[in-house]
């Protein structure tokens, strides 16, 4: 299970501190959200990589569709995960129709709009929607009530149209991390008993795995890769053994 976090300088904890804390909470990996305008120098560490996986995701924030197209082209090949901040209805509709985008984030707040048209398009193009528990955890009163209503609406769309989704608490500090089991209990308490929260947390790892396998030099197309039958464990001495399906 993975969590997507903001590390220093965007957040208030370094990469190593997050990795140390996340290991204790039982996460198998972390995705570090990096706004493309900020320096990525701090997003490196000498932490033992065998202990926990991590990757740096490009976090694209813009209001302009033209600028977004350029940013997606520029960052798709260099980033294992591509995130786009949500905005107006028109902007979100454009984003969910882009096959190259992995996750549409920041779907909370009054400015974010998501309807059934966007949900259907996201399902067709494989763009995940982010269910963020940040407002539930870190706001109170009327703001929290409004965000819970918005989250329930998004969950209804996700269930109805079978939209892929990711779950995150959007931590900006290592003290904001919560264990997967506690997030599950929180989701049940606010009415998400049908939604699989742990699946949403694991989906980050699925995105990483599929994007990194595409970059493998042996990859040809989904389900096909170069290699020999010997290395794949299939014995067929008659063939050249170029493809395995």
């Amino acid at each position, binding site marked *: 299970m993975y969590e997507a976090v903001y590390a220093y300088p965007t957040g*208030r904890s370094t990469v*190593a501190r997050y990795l140390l804390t996340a290991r204790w909470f039982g996460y198998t990996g972390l995705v570090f959200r990096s706004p493309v305008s900020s320096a990525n120098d701090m997003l490196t560490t000498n932490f033992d990589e065998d202990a926990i996986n991590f990757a740096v995701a490009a976090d694209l924030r813009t209001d302009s569709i033209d600028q977004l197209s350029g940013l997606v082209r520029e960052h798709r090949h260099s980033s294992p995960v591509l995130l786009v901040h949500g905005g107006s209805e028109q902007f979100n509709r454009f984003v969910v129709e882009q096959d190259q985008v992995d996750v549409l984030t920041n779907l909370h707040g009054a400015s974010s709009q998501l309807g059934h048209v966007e949900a259907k398009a996201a399902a067709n193009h494989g763009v995940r929607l982010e269910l963020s528990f940040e407002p539930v955890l870190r706001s109170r009163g009327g703001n929290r009530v409004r965000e819970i209503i918005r989250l329930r609406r998004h969950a209804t769309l996700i269930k109805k149209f079978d939209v892929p989704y990711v779950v995150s608490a959007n931590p900006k*500090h290592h003290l*904001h991390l919560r*264990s997967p*089991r506690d997030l599950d*209990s*929180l989701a*049940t308490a606010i009415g998400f008993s049908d939604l699989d929260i742990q699946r949403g947390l694991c989906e980050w790892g699925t995105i990483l795995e599929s994007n990194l396998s595409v970059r493998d030099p042996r990859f040809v197309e989904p389900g096909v890769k170069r290699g020999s039958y010997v290395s794949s464990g299939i014995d067929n001495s008659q063939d050249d053994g170029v493809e395995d399906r």
Partner: protein
Amino acid sequence: MRPLPKHLRPHWRYLAIYLEAEPQVSLSRRDFQRHVWDAAKGLLGDVGAASVDLRVYTFRWEQGSGAAIVRTDRDYVSDARAVIASIDCHDNHPIGLRIAGVSGTVKSCEEKYLGRQLEPIEERTVVFENGDRRAWVRGQTVDILIDNDIIGATTLDIE
């Protein structure tokens, strides 16, 4: 209130919780109980908070780190977890919480889940981002003061 006969009393479960905050944060047992009740009322409402009936049973805190045992009704453990997870900050300083486990008795809760000893904290000057900074070091973790803000780091990040 007069106690109920033993066979009518509710069954309890005890949650072992590790707490963490910035080193200068002072958190008392009363403060934590107040946060627990406010979180329960905010998340579950008055009725839900009455059902989950959270009480801080034991509490210890020392320089930004501590542990507590919170009692809850056996049938509302999941709601209790949600309430504890939603406790966010104290005096505008973030608090980290981790529920280490749930047990039927206080003794087994302490023995199984709260056996970890708190390491001593040391205040000293470290080099971070090409400058000398005031920091608090506890084991592998380092909390560094930069521009009135505490940044969480580890001994791998400092020079």
